[in-house]
């Protein structure tokens, strides 16, 4: 399809009344691609850390997520077990094999069956770890990887996400910067972009029938966020 490609580029240039961009214009465009310059970032994303954590929580709740704050990671197994019991869900969870969750001692709650891996059709509750939380709209950022299956974010009806408070940033742009830094650190291609980056704001919903919002259209019906005070020693995981 080289013919079609050249013709499309050619007709764009012809319509714009020029040939290929001259080198200086090309360089200006490429500079834009590498500088990651921000446009206007709304004030609500530029607050101090305590305000961002509160803002994240309030905004996520407004989008119909539930948020539970935990003093430390020791509380995670009990919080998950309580969540299952509260909603009368099967006592089984499918957990991302994420190093960030490796230190969670699920054996504290032996009644909950724990398995690891990508989601299967039969899984009712998935547990994953977030990459970041964006305060401006209460949005979670989740990334795919060998230990971060994307299917867990969508297939089970219930989604529990573990978010460390230090992962909360103000604006989406802050999350991009963290992702780029992370990409450089682990040496991924494509400017640090994993195959999938999911911005998730509340549980799945639809307004397609008479514009009345119904939760749980195809993705999770419930989104429960465990907001864990950051471990000062970073001992976990």
């Amino acid at each position, binding site marked *: *399809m080289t013919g*079609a*490609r050249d*013709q*499309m*580029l050619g007709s*764009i240039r012809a*319509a*714009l009344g020029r040939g*290929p*961009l001259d080198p200086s*214009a090309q360089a200006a*465009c490429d500079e834009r*691609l*590498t500088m*990651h*310059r921000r*446009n*206007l970032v*709304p*004030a*609500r994303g530029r607050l101090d850390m305590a305000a961002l954590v509160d803002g994240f929580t309030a905004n996520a709740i*407004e*989008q119909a997520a539930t948020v539970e704050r935990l003093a430390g990671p020791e509380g995670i197994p009990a919080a998950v077990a309580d969540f299952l019991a509260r909603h009368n869900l099967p006592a089984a969870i499918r957990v991302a094999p994420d190093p960030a969750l490796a230190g969670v001692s699920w054996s504290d709650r032996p009644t909950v069956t724990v398995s690891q*891996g*990508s989601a299967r059709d039969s899984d009712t509750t998935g547990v994953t770890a977030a990459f970041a939380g964006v305060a401006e*709209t209460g*949005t979670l950022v989740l990334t*795919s*990887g060998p*230990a*971060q299956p*994307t*299917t867990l*974010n*969508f*297939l089970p009806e219930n989604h529990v996400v573990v978010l460390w408070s230090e992962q909360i940033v103000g604006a*989406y*742009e802050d999350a*991009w910067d963290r992702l780029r830094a992370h990409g450089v650190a682990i040496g991924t291609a*494509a*400017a640090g*972009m*994993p*195959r*999938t*980056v999911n*911005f998730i*704001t509340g549980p*799945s*919903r*639809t*307004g397609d*029938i*008479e*514009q009345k919002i*119904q939760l749980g*259209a*195809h*993705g999770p019906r419930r989104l429960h966020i465990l907001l864990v005070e950051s471990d000062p020693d970073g001992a976990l995981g």
Partner: protein
Amino acid sequence: MQSTANVFPSNARRALADERLQSVLGMVDGFNGKRARAVDRLPEFEMLRDQARDIKNHTLQHLDHYLERFETRVTEAGGQVHWCRTAEEARQAVLGICRAVGATTVTKGKSMVTEEIALNRFLEQNGLVPVETDLGEYIIQLRQEAPSHIIAPAVHLSARDVEQTFRSHHGDLPDDRPLTEARDLVNEARTMLRQRFLEADVGITGANFLIAETGSTVIVTNEGNGDLTQVLPRVHVVVASLEKVVPTLEDATTILRLLARSATGQEFSTYTTFSTGPRRAGDADGPEAFHVVLLDNGRSALLGTELQEVLRCIRCGACMNHCPIYSNLGGHAYGWVYPGPIGAVLTPALLGVAEAHHLPNASTFCGRCESVCPMRIPLPRLMRHFRERAFRERLPPAQARWALRAWAWVTRRPRLYRLATGVAIGALGWLGRRRGRFRRFPMAGGWTAYRDLPAPQGETFMARWHRERGHDRRA
């Protein structure tokens, strides 16, 4: 999709006479109140609109360059870009990809571009089974209808209508199941589609953005269907028109702040997903192959003209939500894929003014569309552009053209205009003095069929202006 835009007047008459449709349209309270609240809560909204406009203008000015960079990044990430000049080339590209992997079932996320290229019918004709997975799209696929709104495709249907559709198509389910609540309907669709997601060989989505910096494609949804469509099958195909590209993640982010607020009045859509290439070595899941079908279909010819501005559109639907004509007709009357004010510009731009010259007349020029368009597209001005072109190409009936020409002749002569309107207004005021209005009016029967014409009060606006301003000055 086959266009019926050329018979818009009869489409419109039919829509107005359709009681079922009118009762559904009357029920819709719309997204407008929510949009207004969301805009109020973001003080930076107007500045973001300016920046979003500038981002797209810059991109369109350098479109060839950013598309080349986008392709380079997609290729580096292990994907492939298919350049398609026409709808036919795009359909063939998708079919070729499906055939190469021996696909039978193809799931689809909501995509207006695949409606534009009538992909479903083509795939069916070639032995494939395309399954729409967005709830609204699923409903209208069962009913073999076209979407009537670009973000709420089944907005022309009531819950009752959907119930009937599900009862007649989901024959295996018990007849006595409860299905009156929206809740029941959503759950049933969820159950029916679950198996389709799992068995699909290829997943096709559209794209809200293409990102040159990273080679990512972006979809924005609320249901999560688009994500299941692209993460479960072996192959992910993105069909996107070429103006979707933006330079950086930051640029996409800025426009994303406008999209959901303008569309549904949400602060942010539930799922915004950035996909870059196929699954990586060692990845737990994701598609093994990633294709971007990049469609022109007449868009590049709009660059460098007044119509270039329409290529900034992010398909939020705000213009149709706020349009008095759309609110009364629904989307099908417009006769093609894109209804409302954006359709009144995009349809003649892509299909030609001969096919779609009626659509730019479907406007009162109240200007609400332009005032809410997040990308600041001057929709009324572009509609006027097509009205003028239709006039030059002698598309309106001779009588209308003659009347317009006569009107133009008079209005260019201010004294004559003032004299003529003064006499006419005086005469009408006198004729209508008893009732204060006219039930019927010669040559305006269409207008007075639905309302009375108020009788003028015996004086033109200009005359009154002069009189009162003169009075003010004396005071």
